[in-house]
């Protein structure tokens, strides 16, 4: 698994766009919307290498924070100039409202690409990059508000261990969110999808990234991943409650959600 991602790291984003025809952006947007994070949330994004989820999280929290500040200002009709100026200053310094995201990945190359992207796009505060294994996270218990893993869990050898670790590092009340390829329910779509996966994707892999094998592996790992209900049961076994899933594009991708209660 490590080697696959080493070679894939640099072209990861480009490949994602071409394979999914850009829809992966929408999927990730939906994930963050579903999360609906409030300012002050501490997010752990596992296998989040190139930072897609992290950046979206920061954008979302920033806009929520702005709306909050605007609402506060509207109530400040009767304050003196001095007081208003003071409140501007203290709010400016907390544009994220203490929210933070820790991006954890097993692969150094992916993290490197992520850091470069962050610098390029201008994300600086509220971001941390940590090298770590999903099956054995280098964090204390009860730390995070939300744990996300987008398109990463199918690459984990012992999924049950990763789920247990997720449970461990989440605060009580914390949420587990997983965005992953899943089983398509519609049979016609399923045939088209299979055709696309096995014929087109490895070819794209060869042409764009110069790597047929990795993308062949990718497609096969998608097929091997347990279907929605089974994965839901695995999440429940790890101790999560109110576990549910939402199919996107009739099952090509599913978002599973669970709470540590």
């Amino acid at each position: 698994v490590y080697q696959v991602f080493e070679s894939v790291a640099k072209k990861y984003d480009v490949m994602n766009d071409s394979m999914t025809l850009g829809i992966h952006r929408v999927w990730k947007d939906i994930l963050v919307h579903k999360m609906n994070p409030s300012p002050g949330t501490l997010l752990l994004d596992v296998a989040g290498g190139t930072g897609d989820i992290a950046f979206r999280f920061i954008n979302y929290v920033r806009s929520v924070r702005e709306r909050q500040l605007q609402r506060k200002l509207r109530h400040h009709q009767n304050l003196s100039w001095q007081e208003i100026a003071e409140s501007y200053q203290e709010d400016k310094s907390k544009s994220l409202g203490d929210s933070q995201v820790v991006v954890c990945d097993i692969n150094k190359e992916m993290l490197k690409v992520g850091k470069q992207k962050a610098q390029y796009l201008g994300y600086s505060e509220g971001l941390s990059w940590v090298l770590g294994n999903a099956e054995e996270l280098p964090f204390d218990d009860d730390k995070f508000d939300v744990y996300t893993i987008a398109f990463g869990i199918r690459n984990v050898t012992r999924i049950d261990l990763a789920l247990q670790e997720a449970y461990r590092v989440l605060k009580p009340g914390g949420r587990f969110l997983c965005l992953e390829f899943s089983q398509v329910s519609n049979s016609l779509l399923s045939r088209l999808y299979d055709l696309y996966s096995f014929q087109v994707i490895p070819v794209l892999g060869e042409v764009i990234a110069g790597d047929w094998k990795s993308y062949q592996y990718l497609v096969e790992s998608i097929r091997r991943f347990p279907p929605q209900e089974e994965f839901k049961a695995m999440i429940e076994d790890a101790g999560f409650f109110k576990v549910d899933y939402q199919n996107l594009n009739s099952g090509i991708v599913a978002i599973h959600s669970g709470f540590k209660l």
Partner: protein
Amino acid sequence: VRCQLSPPHRALQGSAVLRRVSDEQKEPLASSQQQFDSHPTTHQPEQEPQGPRPSYTGQGGQESEDYESEEQLQHRILTAALEFVPEHGWTAEAIAEGAKTLGLSAAAAGMFHSDGSELILHFVSQCNTKLSELLEQEQKLVQLGEAEKKPTDQFLRDAVQARLRMLIPYIEKWPQALSILLLPHNIPSSLNLLTSMIDDIWHYAGDQSTDFNWYTRRAVLTGIYNTTELVMMQDSSPDFEDTWRFLENRVADAMNMGNTANQVQSTGEAVVQGLMGAAVTVSNAEPSRAVR
């Protein structure tokens, strides 16, 4: 559908937050436990997933522990969230603040719909329960001879007033709540709560009818309640005097209508007018923020 007996380690670990149910609740769970023990390995797809969590009896004869169900925890969160409504409105933010007071992460608000529907429905249901208890107590006093039985119009006025007074702490954000309750996906629940509350009031008012009048009385009182609620939204008089006067007049009108055929028609019209007025007033009263 988590019906299989979980492996012993789960019973020991328990859950991080769901706390133990007090002993009084052990009784009703006993029967479901019987059913459970006799099917150690088969799944029971029929079992209510929302019911109270059955006790876990591990293989080694461990202590059976009852934990509150997720639903009960959700109720606790919503109740805690109510105190933040005047500040944040009926939103996911209020729910997040409520969760934080219980020691949970704000992410727990993700369990609920992001438009705050469940919070409002929870509140309405709580108010209805309080009203029932109040009416029950009053009835007891009458039965014990410690209080006079009120005439019907007085009774209705007092009941509606008592119920509407429960809105006073949240009155500023109530128009927002009303508009959310009118959303298509909420209408079944909100209508349900409304009709059962009206039924309750008539029940305690001593309504014995089983004939056609049953419907007209419900419709009439529903109309009175809804229109009075709307008047209250726009009332700025001290202690809402104008609203109570309006209520008095409406109840008096209703009493005078009598059992004539006209009553049916005018009731229908009044109800329709009331609903139309509701829709218009609500959409005007709230500077509409996009309802997410």
